[in-house]
C-alpha cells in the first residue's frame, strides 16, 4: 500500500521526504563538504571541477552553478544543506529566501517586517485570498 503523503497541495513547498532525500543524497553531501574551509576554497577556485568530483546529476550541478535554489530543492536538495552554499558565498538566509520567492531582498525584508507572508491564500494550491 502506498504511503500517505498529504503535503503535495501545500503551495510553494517541497517536503524533504524519503523520495527527495534519496534523490538528493549526493547533492546534499556535496553541500556538507563545504563545512570545511579548505573545501570551500577549492570549490570557489573552480566550481565545476569541484562539482565533478561528486556523483551528482547534471541537472543538480547546473542548478548549483546558477544558484537556482528552487531547482536544487526540486532535485532533492534540503534547505539546511543548501545553506552551506550561500554561507560559502557570504550570503544570508534572507538573501536565499528572497531569491526563492522571486523578490528583491529589500522587498522580502519589508514583507517580513510587515508580518510575513500571510496564511490567507497560501495554505492550499489554488486557494483564493
Amino acid at each position, binding site marked *: 500500500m502506498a504511503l500517505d503523503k498529504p503535503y503535495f497541495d*501545500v503551495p510553494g*513547498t517541497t517536503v524533504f521526504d524519503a523520495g527527495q532525500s534519496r534523490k538528493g543524497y549526493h547533492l546534499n553531501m556535496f553541500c556538507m563538504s563545504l563545512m570545511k574551509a579548505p573545501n570551500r576554497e577549492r570549490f570557489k577556485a573552480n566550481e565545476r571541477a569541484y562539482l565533478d568530483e561528486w556523483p551528482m546529476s547534471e541537472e543538480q550541478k547546473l542548478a548549483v552553478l546558477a544558484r537556482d535554489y528552487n531547482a536544487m530543492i526540486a532535485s532533492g536538495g*534540503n*534547505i539546511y544543506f543548501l545553506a552551506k552554499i550561500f554561507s560559502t558565498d557570504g550570503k544570508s*538566509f534572507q538573501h536565499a*529566501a528572497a531569491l526563492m520567492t522571486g523578490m528583491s531582498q529589500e522587498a522580502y525584508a519589508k514583507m517580513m517586517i510587515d508580518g510575513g*507572508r500571510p*496564511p490567507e491564500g497560501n495554505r492550499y494550491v489554488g486557494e483564493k485570498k
Partner: protein
Amino acid sequence: MARITAGITTSHIPAVGAAIDLGKMWEPYWTPVFKGYEFSKQWMAANRPDVVFLVYNDHATAFSLDFIPTFAIGCAEDFAVADEGWGPRPVPAVQGHPDLAWHIAQSVIQSDFDLTIVNRMEVDHGLTVPLSLMFGQPQAWPCRVIPFAVNVVQYPPPSGNRCYQLGKAIRRAVESFDEDLNVQIWGTGGMSHQLQGPRAGFINKQFDQRFLDRLIEEPEALAQMPHIDYIRDAGSEGIELVMWLIMRGALDAKVKTIHRFYHVPASNTAVGHLILENAQ
C-alpha cells in the same frame, strides 16, 4: 532526588545569535526581540538550574544524511561549538552531565523510547542560541547541559504524541536519579516559519498564539495534531514545534505561565517564548 523545576520554550534563530555576537541587540530591528527576554534573564538569575535538558534540532551540522537519528541524547563530558560555515560562535563550550544523561538514556530506552546515544558531538545554533538568550554572554555557561537532538530535517519527524509521551518518560527518568539536582527542560525551535521555496517567509500569527494557548492548557489534545497541519499552517520549518511537546510532557497537566512572549519577525521567523512551572 533530581526534579524538573521548570519548562522553557524558545526559538533558536541563527540571526538572533549573530545579533548577540555582533553587539546588535539594541539596534531598532532587534530591540523588540531582546526586550522579550529581559524578564527571562532576571528570572533565570533567581532560578538557576544545575542542569538544562535541552531539546533542539541539529541543522545538518553534527548529523548529515549519513546518520539520521530521530532522538539522540548527548552523554559526553563536553560539547564543542560547531563551525557552521562562518566560524564557531564566540560562546563557551557546553559542559555535559554524563551521569544524568546516561541514567536518562538507560531509563528511557527501558520505557520503549529507543534513543541514539552520542558520546561525541558538536552543537550548533539550535542549542547555543537558546543558552545565549537565557544566560546572556558569560565566560562559562552557569550550568550543565544535556543536548537532546530531535530529527526535524528529514521528513517525517517524530509525531507530536510521541514527543509528548517521551517528555513523560524523561520526567520519570529524572525523578529516579538519586542526586539532588534542579533540572530544567527546554524545548526550542519554531514558531511559524518557512525557509524554502516560493512560499518562504510564511508566518501565521493566529496559529502561533493558538499553539501557545493549547500547549499551556490542553497539551494532550495538541499532541494529536498531525504533521500536515504544522506544514500547512506553520510553514515547512514550523514543524520544529513538535519539540516543544517533549518539554510539555515533562511537566504536570496543570501549569502556571511565568512568562509569555511573541514577536514577528526575527529574520524569517516568528519568535515564541514561554517559561512554565508546575501549578502546585
